[in-house]
C-alpha cells in the first residue's frame, strides 16, 4: 500500500464510494448472468478504447494481496497491457505476473488465456461495445426491450446474413453467445476460438464497457452457448499447422512477419503459454533459431 499512499491516490485509484457502487453493479451482474447492468462510470486517466471499463472493474475487485496479470491480444508486453499493469502498480502497489495460474485477477483485451482458469480467479474483459444487437438495431430503447423479453431472432438474422454472403458463419470474433439460456451477450472482441472456454468456467468472468457504462458477468460454472444454426453448427478456428516456436497444436495462432522478405510463421498469441511450453522443452519448427523477443515485437505491431 505504500506505493499508493506515496503517489497520493486512494488504493486502486477509485474512491471507496465509487468502488462500492461498481461492486454493487457487479453483484447485480453476477445475479443475472449476461445482463448488461448500467453503472455510473468514472472518468479514468486513460482514453476510452484503452480499457477504462475493464480498469474500473479491476480497480473495484482488486485487493493488496492480489496478483495481477494484464494481457492484450494474448501478450503481456504490448503497450496497452504494459500501461495498465504500470497503472495498477502505481495506484495499488499489487504484485504482477505473466503466469496465468499465478494471477488472481487477469485483465484482458481480445483473448482468454490458453491455460485453464481455476476457481478463485477473476478474469476482467475490456469491452468496446457491450450490445451484441447494436449493428442491427441502433435504438437503445428497442435493444433493451429485446433483452427484457428475450427477443433474439435478430441476432440469428446476422448469422443468416453471414451464411448468405459467405457460405458459412464468417463472424470470427465477438461471436454472440447465450448466457445461462437467458441473455444474449457480446463476449468482447475475443476470437471465437475462445468462446468454448467461457462455458462452465470455474473462474468469475467480469466484463466492463467504459464508454457505454455497462457491466456484465458470468458466474463460475455457467452455461455459455455460441449461437448457430442446426445445419451450420458453431465451429472454432483451426490451423493446419502448429506453433512455430513451441509446437503447440491446441492454441490460438497469430500469423507474424519474420523478416522484410515476406517470411511468415504462425505462433501462439498467448505469449505466457508459448514461453512455458518452450521452457518445458517443446520446440517448434523455428523455435530453435528464432529468439523470443522478435515474435512479440511483430505482435505488438499487429494490434487491430
Amino acid at each position, binding site marked *: 500500500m505504500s506505493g499508493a499512499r506515496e503517489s497520493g491516490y486512494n488504493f486502486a485509484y477509485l474512491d471507496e464510494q465509487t468502488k462500492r457502487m461498481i461492486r454493487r453493479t457487479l453483484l447485480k451482474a453476477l445475479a443475472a448472468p449476461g445482463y448488461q447492468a448500467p453503472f455510473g462510470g468514472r472518468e479514468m486517466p486513460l482514453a476510452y478504447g484503452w480499457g477504462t471499463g475493464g480498469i474500473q472493474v479491476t480497480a473495484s475487485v482488486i485487493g493488496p494481496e492480489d496478483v495481477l496479470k494484464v494481457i492484450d491480444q494474448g501478450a503481456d508486453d504490448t503497450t496497452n497491457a504494459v500501461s495498465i499493469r504500470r497503472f495498477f502498480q502505481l495506484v495499488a502497489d499489487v504484485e504482477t505476473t505473466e503466469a496465468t495460474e499465478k494471477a488472481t485477477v487477469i485483465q484482458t483485451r481480445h483473448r482468454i488465456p490458453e491455460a485453464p482458469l481455476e476457481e478463485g480467479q477473476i478474469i476482467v474483459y475490456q469491452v468496446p461495445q457491450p450490445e451484441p444487437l447494436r*449493428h*442491427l438495431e441502433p435504438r437503445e430503447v428497442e435493444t433493451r*426491450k429485446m433483452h*427484457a*423479453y428475450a*427477443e433474439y*431472432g*435478430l441476432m*440469428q*438474422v446476422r448469422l*443468416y*446474413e453471414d*451464411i*448468405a*454472403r459467405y457460405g458459412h458463419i464468417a463472424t470470427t470474433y465477438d461471436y454472440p453467445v447465450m448466457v445461462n439460456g437467458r441473455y444474449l451477450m457480446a463476449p468482447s472482441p475475443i476470437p471465437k476460438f475462445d468462446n468454448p472456454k467461457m462455458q462452465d468456467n470455474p473462474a468469475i468472468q467480469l466484463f466492463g464497457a467504459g464508454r457505454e457504462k455497462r457491466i456484465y458477468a458470468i458466474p463460475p460454472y455457467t452455461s455459455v452457448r455460441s449461437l*448457430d*444454426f*442446426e*445445419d*451450420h453448427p458453431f465451429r472454432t478456428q483451426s490451423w493446419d499447422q502448429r506453433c512455430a516456436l513451441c509446437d503447440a497444436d491446441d492454441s490460438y495462432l497469430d500469423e507474424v512477419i519474420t523478416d522484410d522478405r515476406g517470411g511468415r510463421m504462425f505462433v501462439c498469441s498467448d505469449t505466457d503459454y508459448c514461453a512455458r511450453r518452450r521452457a518445458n522443452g517443446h520446440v517448434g519448427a523455428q523455435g530453435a533459431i528464432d529468439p523470443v523477443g522478435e515474435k512479440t515485437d511483430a505482435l505488438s505491431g499487429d494490434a487491430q
Partner: protein
Amino acid sequence: MSAAASMRTRAPLMQARSVTRSYGGNIGCRDVSFTLYPGEVIGIVGESGSGKSTLLACLSGRLEPDSGVISYDMRGRGFVDIQTLSEPERRMLMRTDWGMVHQNPRDGLRMAVSAGGNVGERLMAVGARHYGDIRGEAQNWLAKVEIDLERIDDKPRTFSGGMQQRLQIARNLVTTPRLVFMDEPTGGLDVSVQARLLDLLRGLVRELGIAVIVVTHDLAVVRLLADRLMVMRRGEVVEHGLTDQVLDDPHHPYTQLLVSSVLQA
C-alpha cells in the same frame, strides 16, 4: 358478396367498441366501432387528418386509446382485450399472428439486411434455427411476391419502391398471420406499380384467407381490395358498409363529395 355473407356465420376476429383517442385538445379518432371477420378486408378512407392512422395505431396496439375496447380472437386463447396484453405478448402477436405494412418501407424493412434476411427474420424470431429451411421459405415468399430469386441476397435499398413494398408484404406474411394492418401501402408508388401491387395483394389475401385493415386516401385501393368500407371524417366514421354499396350509392354528404372525387386531387 358471397365471401362477406359466409363471414357472418363465423365468429369475429376483431371487435372495436367506441374507440376514442385524442391528442391534447385535438381529436384523433372518436367513438369508432366495427367488427372484423376472418379473411375480411376492411378499408378505411378519409381525407388527410381524418384519423385513419390514429385508428390503425390503436387497433394494432401501438397507441393506447383514451377509451373504448379492442378485442382480438387470439389463437388458443379466445377473445382478449388487447389493452390487457403485456408488452411482450403484444410484440409477440405483432410478429406472429399480425402483420404491419407501412407506407414508408424504411419503417417496415431492415434496410441493412438482405431481402432473404428480411423475410426470414420472423421465422427466426419464433425459433427457426435451420438455415436451409429458412432460406427455402424466404425463396418461397419472394416468389409469391414476384421478386426475382436472384435478388435474395441484395439489400432492399437497391430495390424499387414497388419491390420494397412487396418485400414488406412477404416479410409479414411468412408467419401466415391472420390479420394484417396496412397504412397507405401503395402511397408514393406510380399508378402502374400501384395496380400491380394491389393485384398481388388481392390474390394473396384471398388465397391465404388473411383479414386486412387497410388505411388509404385512395378510393381505387379500397375498390379493388376491400370488402367493406369505413369513411372517416374529423375522427369519426360517417359511413360504413359494403364497399360497392358505399362507393356506388353514398349516403353521407361527405362520402358523396369524396366519391365525386372533389377531394381526391
